[in-house]
């Protein structure tokens, strides 16, 4: 393997896999709870969070950015909840209003408040920046891309959370009325899940961009839905499919064009989403019991 592979493709591949895993775990619960569009809303809201964090602190440090984005996600979740419950606005519309307004605010802040002084722009949100990851040789812990570290921590956190709360998450998602009657605080579970989704959206934003984060949240989980009838198999299969989708997507974008004789690679984030779509489409058609072709027989 060449140096280019180890310094550019290897970290990008690692980030893609970690991001996919981090999104697929809460993604299964979003899909099961019919809240998939929260992924859409939260991933868009990361942008104004980043812009505000920079304007308020003047720092581009990853810690500051992370907290800013996370706070923006929480504010958006609360706003959506308020619009839904106190203003009686239908949930899809409430989400649409909140995330488009905040995204627009983020764009204006970026253009007018941040300006071209620093490298922070809407490009990331729209296209993703997987190709920009770089881990100079020789690899050491000191020059490792911070996304690899933060995504690894996030994965440990979300696996631990789901391992601990699997039974609570399952009950609250399946039958929230009953959950409440046996004393499970469903608002607590929902809040914890939303924080996990927000964390994943923020951590993956840089790698794949806001729109494509949605593909990582939804496509593997939805594909697994076509096969699985138990929550734990659903979680495992969607994690496996997510990592598979990241690897195939990255390879298809980075290496296949060269093999076909083209000079340049394609957008890795876009290709990962596209591969996710192909996996989902295949699952929908060919799944053994719930697949469309099987049902037609």
């Amino acid at each position, binding site marked *: 393997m060449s140096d280019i592979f180890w310094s550019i493709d290897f970290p990008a591949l690692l980030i893609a896999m970690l991001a996919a895993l981090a999104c697929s775990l809460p993604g299964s619960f979003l899909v099961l709870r*019919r809240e998939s569009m929260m992924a859409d809303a939260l991933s868009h809201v990361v942008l104004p969070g980043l812009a505000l964090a920079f304007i308020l602190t003047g720092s581009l440090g990853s810690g500051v950015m992370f907290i800013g984005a996370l706070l923006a996600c929480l504010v958006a979740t609360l706003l959506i909840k308020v619009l839904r419950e106190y203003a009686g606005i*239908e949930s899809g519309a409430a989400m649409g209003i909140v995330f488009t307004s905040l995204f627009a605010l983020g764009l204006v802040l970026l253009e007018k408040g941040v300006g071209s002084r620093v490298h922070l722009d809407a490009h990331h949100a729209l296209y993703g920046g997987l190709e920009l990851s770089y881990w100079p040789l020789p690899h050491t812990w000191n020059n490792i891309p911070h996304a690899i570290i933060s995504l690894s921590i996030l994965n440990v956190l979300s696996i631990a959370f789901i391992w601990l709360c699997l039974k609570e998450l399952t009950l609250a998602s399946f039958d929230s009325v009953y959950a409440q009657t046996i004393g499970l605080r469903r608002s607590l579970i929902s809040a914890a899940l939303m924080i996990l989704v927000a964390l994943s959206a923020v951590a993956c934003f840089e790698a794949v961009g806001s729109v494509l984060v949605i593909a990582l949240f939804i496509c593997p989980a939805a594909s697994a839905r076509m096969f699985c009838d138990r929550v734990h198999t659903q979680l495992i299969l969607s994690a496996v499919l997510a990592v598979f989708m990241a690897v195939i997507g990255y390879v298809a974008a980075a290496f296949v064009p060269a093999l076909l004789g083209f000079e340049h690679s394609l957008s890795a984030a876009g290709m990962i*989403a596209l591969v996710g779509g192909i996996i989902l489409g295949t699952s929908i058609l060919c799944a053994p019991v719930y697949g469309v072709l099987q049902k037609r027989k």
Partner: protein
Amino acid sequence: MVSIGYNSLLVLCGALVLGALCGLVGSFIYLRKNTLISDATSHATLPGIGIGFLVAFALGWEQGRHLPTLLAGAALTGALAAFTIGWMQRNTRLNNDVAVGAVLSVFYGAGIVLLSIIQRLENASQAALDSFLLGQIAGISIGDIYLILILCAVTIICTLLLLKELTLLCFDEEFAHTTGMSVSKVDIALICLMLGVVCVGLRMVGLILILALLIIPPVTARLWTDKLSNMLWLSSAIGGLCALTGAYLSASIEHLPAGAAIVLCAAALFFPSALFRRHAA
């Protein structure tokens, strides 16, 4: 008094009509609780824009930036996305939100892949494609404005022709069914109208934020009135006003994305309304 040139006047006029159109069609979309489909459809126009660009580029039209071809491509993939969502809902165990989210992100991903191909083309004015993501008022050509105005006029006429059916559909689906009206056909017509609005709005508002112009004016109008006819004209008025103000601001302030300016105007009307009129809903 600042004098406004003929071109700028036309652009503002286009924004006004587009905003009003969004408010009108958006009202029905909101009442049918179909807002998220418009989100997916608008994102799904991106691969169509890419395909349109490649076709126009291959044919040597304006280095690829040929608005009619781009919009035709956008309409094509937008329609495909809307159809896919409907098909997934009918034929699989996946819920509506999953279908919408998956279609939205996968189509958008395909679009991004196409854009990364286009970026490598020589002599292509691919930079102009960025304006379809976030909308741009500056640099819009007179021919484009005429096209936008004509498409707006066609969509408005179609909406007005279907006004009775759409009203009935939103008011009482079951009754509509008993009158012999085909509910599914009117629903499809509504999706087509929405698609038309999205395509018309791509150039000025951009595909990420056109959703806002479809939702915020109707929801704001709904907070102030219970009557459908009032809601329709109020929503159109709000949409037109926001688009006009936003376009004007974007044209006069440098680096202010048009879509964002328009959406922020709408949000500035919506949030106070929600605060003061929350019992109305």
